């Protein structure tokens, strides 16, 4: 099933009004499984390739990595975008920071990872699903750098939490007219590094490479994240070997960030699999673009 999604809104405030526009989206659902979908901006030039990849049948012969297996994991094909969406994007949202629910609260200015990652939340990227001209409180879209060379330097706030944190607003988003705005990220864009992604895989004796994620969550009690891997390969002596069955990876937010290898891929790639984010039960379109990253240690569930 193919759904076309467009949204038109106007924010009227005492000082004037602004029209809120976002990219027209397309959502493709697998008829056999309503849980599987592709969400993308309709004008995304790679959409045709993504639809072909989405419709590919799953591999028939696969290997199940054993539970408890701890190993290095390469996140390729833009899958590090959803990873950082969970580890960094949500954790810098103003409401979670203001009331101490984020493990990153109180860490402003701290080096979270030795990788010189620069992560920007950019609603101006209209080729990605989370774009908007201004947020649902009428603040014009502005990119916010949340991580600069690995150092935590920005929060994503609506007007209310911006006042508390003495920072800029611009991320007050609403699922629809029935809900008030809350701080939500838009498109998380990770700057390219200078490492050839092949070298990240080539240096591993035994590990895994993830090429498609089906979902990711962070448990608010334990602050551990669970990543649902849909496609990937086993790596042996730097070469892709067996195709992986669907499985899950886990680790704590701060431990995974600390375990990101300093070498960052030079291949920023938009993710097409997870164009929709649910927070407190409320869905919103979001996007990401990220290069290949290596996490030195993750645990298979």
């Amino acid at each position, binding site marked *: 099933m193919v759904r076309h999604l467009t949204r038109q809104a106007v924010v009227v405030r005492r000082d004037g009004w602004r029209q809120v526009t976002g990219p027209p989206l397309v959502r493709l659902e697998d008829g*056999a499984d309503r*849980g599987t979908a592709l969400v993308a901006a309709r004008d995304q030039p790679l959409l045709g390739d993504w639809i072909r990849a989405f419709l590919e049948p799953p591999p028939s012969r696969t290997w199940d990595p054993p*539970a*408890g297996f701890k190993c290095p994991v390469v996140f390729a094909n833009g899958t590090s975008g959803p990873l950082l969406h969970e580890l960094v994007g949500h954790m810098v949202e103003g409401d979670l920071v203001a*009331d*101490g*629910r984020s*493990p990153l609260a109180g860490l402003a200015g701290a080096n979270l990872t030795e990788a010189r990652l620069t992560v920007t939340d950019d609603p101006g990227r209209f080729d990605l699903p989370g774009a908007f001209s201004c947020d649902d409180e009428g603040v014009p879209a502005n990119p916010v750098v949340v991580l600069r060379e690995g150092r935590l330097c920005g929060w994503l706030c609506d007007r209310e939490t911006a006042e508390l944190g003495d920072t800029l607003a611009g991320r007050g988003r609403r699922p629809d007219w*029935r*809900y*008030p705005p809350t701080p939500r990220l838009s498109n998380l864009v990770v700057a390219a590094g200078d490492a050839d992604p092949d070298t990240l895989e080539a240096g591993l004796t035994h590990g895994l490479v993830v090429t498609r994620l089906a*979902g990711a*969550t962070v*448990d*608010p*009690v*334990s*602050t*551990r994240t*669970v990543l*649902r891997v849909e496609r990937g390969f086993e790596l042996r002596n730097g070469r892709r070997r067996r195709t992986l069955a669907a499985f*899950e990876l*886990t680790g704590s937010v701060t431990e995974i960030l600390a375990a990101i290898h300093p070498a960052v891929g030079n291949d920023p790639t938009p993710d097409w699999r997870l164009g929709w984010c649910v927070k407190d039960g409320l869905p919103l379109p979001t996007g990401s673009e990220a290069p290949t990253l290596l996490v030195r240690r993750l*645990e*298979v*569930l």
Partner: protein
Amino acid sequence: MGSSIESDELYDRLGDAVTTCGELLGGTTVDRWEVFAKNSLTRETEISGGRIRRTIQVEENGIGIRVYDQGRAGFAAVSGLDAGAARFAVESGRAGAVHGPDPMPPARLLGTSDVARGPELPPRGWAQHVASELEMALSAMSDNVLRLGRAMIQEGRYAWTLHTGDGWSARHDRTVASMVVEVQVGDRPGTWREWVHVADPAAIDAEAVASRIGNRALLTRHNVATDRGLHDLLLHPEVSAQLVAALSPLFIATDVGQDRLPGLLDRNGLLAAYALTITDDRSDPSAPVVSPCDGEGLPARRTLLLEEGAPRHRVASYADAHRFDELPRGGAVRLSYRDRPVSGLVNLRVLTEDGMAAGELLAASDRALYLLRPLAPVVCDLAADSYSLIASGVWLEHQRVRGWHPVVELRGGLGTLLRRIDAVGSDLCWFETPRGFVGAPSLLIRRQPVMG
């Protein structure tokens, strides 16, 4: 305040909307029609530190219309109840009609329109009072270890009316309430979050709610302990509810090519152990969704889906029942005026008449993993007869807690899991799941593979 519109005035407006639609349709070639008009009022109050932080009140009105016009079936939905909305709904329903069978049930199948009115919304201040009582009860039951972070008290009232061109009509109104409670557990970072269905706002028992939340949340204070291998499992009702929700596609009528149920049955025709009986019931007054009829007007009834492990019936809208050779049992769901009626479950419930008390369940296994809360929806691959369940839990030895396992995964054969259900608890609770409301008790399952 009860409602922004007094009840009689509200019914007048709903009635005016359907009357206008009926008059407009009367002058056309439409053979059969059905008009659904609904008003809903919801109020969410967020409370923390004893103060109201935010109140969101939303009122919504709309009309949904189905027509059958000379071999063409159409549906349209329009917000608003005025004459303009009625006209637009009628015009859109006719304009969008496509060739196909008449999806509407015949008048002889429709149920009663004799419906009692629901109570008014609780008075203003009720939410703050409930949060205050809950805060004290949590503190008292845990020696100040549990602190209420936030409480979101949700109250709602809806009223709808359904009319058909055959002269049949029904109307209904109801008040509903629930709350989302966030609790801090000692000095541990992280938040315990729980959704609680409030069947009767006038009789809410803050101590019982605090006990329900606290008994589980306090278990996460234990030191981390992990294990793997084959173990007995005790599923908290919230985990059981996610598992039952994942089975729900099996209970909805479908065509033979998509039907996964036969492949999951054992040689005796059983899907699950004898202990498991599941129904769908919109006439249960303690359930979250109660109505006198389904989304098309068929009388509300309890549908037996699984009886002592054996599949019995499936739910279907009238059109799907006709299509898939099922008896129409009132299985059409209409979540909003915007949605056409579709086959679906409303209150999926595990029967607990013969359930064991929680203490007896705990005593039934010397060594078990007690799964406290799901960390993700339970995934069941019905075609491959497999499941994956990710949860946090505690290890129990001789009814004592050995340690907390923050993230644990279970994977294996779905049929094997369901047929190893040894006992059902009597502690039924309702939960909101991605597949609707599910009422489930604790479940004891013997010898399942536990990973990591």
